[in-house]
């Protein structure tokens, strides 16, 4: 079988308290599929960071996880403000998160760098005023 399995999640931008729920669910699914625990961990951490970013910086969005035989692909899309300077945003420690978010322990500016380091490939497609789509791939083999 060569078809992918898709898991689709809607990330609610209005409810900060529910951020991270999709990454919890994907863990369960990947376990059911028998994916290696170390890989599950990488996928869920990368996805968690992306999910939180969508809630903090972009009023929510969607996550599509496609599981292929040889790789797991995560596509996070939002219709938020877009990222003005991607190179800068990728720098460890760079953050535009508001104070109330920081007081909750987010906004350390490590999200994007971690997403990159936990995955085997990451692409950011972003346009000011239109939105951001981040595609990440974790290889299974």
């Amino acid at each position, binding site marked *: 079988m060569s078809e992918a399995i898709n898991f689709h999640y809607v990330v609610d931008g209005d409810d900060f308290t529910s951020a991270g729920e999709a990454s919890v669910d994907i863990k369960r699914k990947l376990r059911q599929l*028998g994916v290696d625990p170390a890989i*599950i961990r990488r996928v869920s951490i990368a996805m*968690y960071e992306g999910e939180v970013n969508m809630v903090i910086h972009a009023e929510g969005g969607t996550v599509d996880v496609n599981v292929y*035989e040889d790789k797991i692909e995560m596509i996070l899309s939002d219709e938020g403000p877009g990222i003005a300077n991607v190179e800068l945003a990728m720098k460890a420690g760079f953050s535009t998160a508001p104070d109330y978010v920081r007081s909750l322990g987010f906004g350390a500016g490590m999200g994007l760098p971690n997403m990159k380091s936990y995955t085997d490939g990451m692409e950011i497609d972003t346009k000011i005023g239109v939105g951001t789509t981040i595609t990440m791939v974790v290889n299974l083999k």
Partner: protein
Amino acid sequence: MSNFIHSVSLNVSKCKGCTSCLRRCPTEAIRIKEGHAVIDSERCIDCGECIRACPHKAKKAVCSPFEKINEFKYKIAMPAPTLYGQFNNLDDIDYCLQGLLDIGFDDVYEVSYAAEFISAYTRLYLKKEDIKKPIISSACPVIVRLINLRYPSLCDNIMPIIPPMELAAIFARQKAKKKHPELKDEDIGVCFISPCPGKSSYVVNDELGKKENVDVVLAMNDIYFRLLAVMKGEKTPKPLSKSGLLGIGWAVSGGESSALFSDKYLAADGLENVIQVLEEIDNGKLPELDFVELNACNSGCVGGILTVENPYIAKAKMQSLRKYLPVSGAHPDDKIPNEAYFENVNCFKPIQQFSDNMQESMRLMSEIQTVCSNLPEIDCGSCGAPTCLAFAEDVVLKGADINNCIINMKDYLLQKLEEKKDESYDS
């Protein structure tokens, strides 16, 4: 098939199939079949949530009957510290320990005293270089089993040191042999007085390595009533208690952590909270922590299903009992003895996995998605499964009948009705 022996059991004749327990089960181990609950042995973690939830008292914790102690020549009572919090106006633990002798035990050995050794060993263990932090306490067996079933990547975080009850049993046995060299191993009965079915399962299963130190597990609520009858405070009790406030503190959530003299810890209690914390650790979100204490029951073991007193009241009583105690009764060496280590801690069981073959798992997953997309997603429970998704999994993986879903059933019945009408028109 799983050969795990559980300590939560169901009385089928009392069960009305009411679904009260269905959604309370944290591992989705319960289904209602043929009008009554069925517990999946592979998934059950003996947390006792279903016992709490059942309005018909159809579920109960299995321990040994008190009479079992008579099988042994020399009977040692090993009370969990929680026991001390069950009594009104108890101002000295010795009354309680004396009571245990009065109801038929030959000696007592406090689990709280052994707990002080485990605290000391934990302090030493946390100083090691090559360990995976945060270290997760191994004291609550329900948590250990939960991690083994659901959090493969956290199995290595579990502290490989035995729980206080186990160490107490080793010590109690040694003490008995020293005092009575004529006793043979099989003459000695080490009887743990347990706050929960989880500890009982821990004793009867040897998942974490062979252990033959505890012989009998008795229900705390049973012992409580026997003690009430003899604890009249008429005579001065023998000075039996050796524990300090650190050991006694283990009965309440946060007690184990506070004995580590460090502030890099987290203590969570109640399964729902615990699961949230485990998810966070699993996501690498709590890197600053050295130690995580997790208790399945609200407030810790004082909230165990076999206790009598309300956990908050018990907690208050424990606080006043601790007041004039020394910090620690035990003063162990600066070395963790080999006997204090588990044989195997990481025994992850991938029970959630659909099949060994990933292609096959993917095929099953897409079939489940198809079945689920035709279900109403209202999680009503009338099919006997806790959620529509769990039901779809049952249909695909376990051959459950899709018509158990009332929505499908309705269509099916309407169709039958039509057929019947047609028939009657025909005739």
